[in-house]
């Protein structure tokens, strides 16, 4: 941070029309870059989380969008298999169906193994596990399409249950949506906290330099000239803090993504950041600088307007 500060100070000294010399040592306050760094780092993490959740939801939604599961819940195994075959045959001919796959019994046994056990003597096949038919539609599984599929299956399998796969994950999607709102709310709160910090720092700096400001006023200095000095100072602080915050945030994102990648869950696998998302994340420090500069300007001008 000291290096950035040194470089900025050097640049500041040669900036346009000597404005920086109107107010000496106009750097708003020592901790300000660090406060902004923390805010930006948290914002980056929150934004990355929100974007990753959105991507995960979109990926899962795309996977399940045209997915329909047909369950044959008849208790008798032979009747169940017969009805399942008939339903699969009927659905395969439906125009909206792209693919029909009857889930093999071994696959079903594997699915229920964690709950029903695999000890020697366990007769899993003796349990009335429904037959499952995985159906892929051409397009989303709308209520009309589901109704049509039900109409096709009921004549050949009265016990058939037709459900959209997306419907099962609706609570998950709702939770993801809530988390996205939470991330958005968190970002908004961080922005407000940044505004509050800048506002306090600006007022504090104004108080510290009040005498000099009065002198500059008496010498014919304008509010805009004075505000420009504070703006520039805040821009440097925010840029330095934003850069550090961005680096810290990116390191955190990378570390978190590696942790989540080890879970190997299908849903988590979709929670990746695309290049567009990285552009958004890279823009966060810039937005932070703009917010800080605007806040400093408005605060300073509002305070100066109260002076003669």
């Amino acid at each position, binding site marked *: 941070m000291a290096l950035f500060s040194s470089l900025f100070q050097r640049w500041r000294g040669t900036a346009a029309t000597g404005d920086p*010399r109107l107010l000496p040592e106009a750097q708003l306050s020592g901790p300000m870059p660090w406060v902004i760094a923390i805010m930006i780092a948290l914002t980056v993490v929150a934004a990355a989380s929100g974007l990753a959740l959105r991507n995960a939801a979109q990926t899962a939604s795309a996977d399940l969008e045209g997915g329909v599961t047909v369950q044959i819940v008849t208790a008798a195994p032979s009747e169940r298999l017969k009805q399942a075959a008939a339903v699969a045959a009927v659905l395969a001919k439906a125009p909206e169906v792209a693919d029909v796959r009857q889930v093999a019994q071994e696959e079903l046994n594997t699915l229920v193994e964690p709950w029903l056990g695999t000890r020697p003597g366990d007769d899993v096949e003796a349990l009335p596990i429904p037959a499952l038919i995985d159906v892929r539609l051409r397009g989303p599984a709308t209520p009309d399409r589901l109704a049509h599929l039900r109409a096709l299956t009921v004549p050949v399998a009265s016990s058939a249950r037709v459900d959209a796969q997306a419907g099962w994950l609706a609570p998950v999607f709702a939770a993801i949506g809530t988390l996205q709102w939470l991330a958005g709310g968190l970002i908004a709160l961080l922005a407000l906290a940044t505004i509050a910090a800048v506002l306090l720092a600006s007022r504090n700096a104004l108080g510290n330099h009040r005498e000099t400001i009065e002198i500059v006023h*008496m010498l*014919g*200095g*304008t509010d805009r000239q004075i505000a420009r000095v504070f703006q520039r100072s805040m821009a440097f602080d925010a840029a330095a803090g934003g850069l550090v915050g961005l680096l810290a945030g990116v390191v955190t994102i990378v570390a978190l993504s590696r942790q989540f990648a080890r879970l190997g869950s299908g849903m988590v696998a979709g929670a990746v950041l695309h290049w567009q998302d990285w552009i958004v994340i890279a823009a966060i420090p810039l937005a932070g600088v703009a917010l800080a500069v605007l806040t400093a300007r408005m605060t300073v001008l509002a305070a100066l307007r109260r002076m003669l």
Partner: protein
Amino acid sequence: MDGEKCSPALFSTSIAPYSRPERRAGPARAPQPTGIATPDMSQPDAEIVQFDNVGLRYGTDKEILADVSFTLYPGCFYFLTGASGAGKTSLLKLLYLAQRPSRGLIRLFGTDAITLPRERLPGFRRRIGVVFQDFRLVPHLSAFDNVALPLRVAGVSEKDIARPVGEMLDWVGLGDRQHARPATLSGGEQQRVAIARAVIARPDMLVADEPTGNVDPDMALKLLRLFESLNRLGTTVVVATHDVHLIRKVPESLIMRLDKGRLSDPTGALRYPPRRATMSGADAPPAT
């Protein structure tokens, strides 16, 4: 104040207006950046300041200044005198637009200063040089940067600042203390930096509040001669002091006396406009 003096003459609106002496030397006026409203000086011969029944009170206290009326003319040398607490500093604050009056009318450079929008104040302030009683130098800036401040405020480029500021500091005898901070300067040196800062942009009016209060008699006389030199260049000078000896050093000066916030007029300065004054360049500031 060599040559013809700012001496009283019968006041009449038919009298030819006072001719503002031409500037013979000194740095070019600092340019006004865009967006700064400049005072209306299309009538350069008009009175520079006009107070009419001006009163000033802070809060609900009694008036510090009451029924103050006077007119200042370009190129004259005025002393504002009175006992401590008479209201000299308050009157000067009204003059250099650091304070608005509670009542009355103030015209500055031909413009109503009471209703002057706040955003137009800088343009007027740049025409007034102020030497504060407590110097009010910027502590973090060197003597050079303090003197350069009015030029920088006015947007003068750095290449056009170095020479006039250096010469101005030489002129006040601080050429070798350019890089010194105010804290390392003596009272007299600080005073001279403050004066150099006040005059560097060649103001139309110089207002000095007890400028010799913190210096020895020799330095006081030297500063007074410096003000006279400026006055000869056409700057209207208003010096607030309670030092009678100092006033006597400038016999041609016009005196305004404040007594408990009310103005009296021992030399007729307020009743009569001055006659034409001319300059002598004997002690003129450097041609920068």
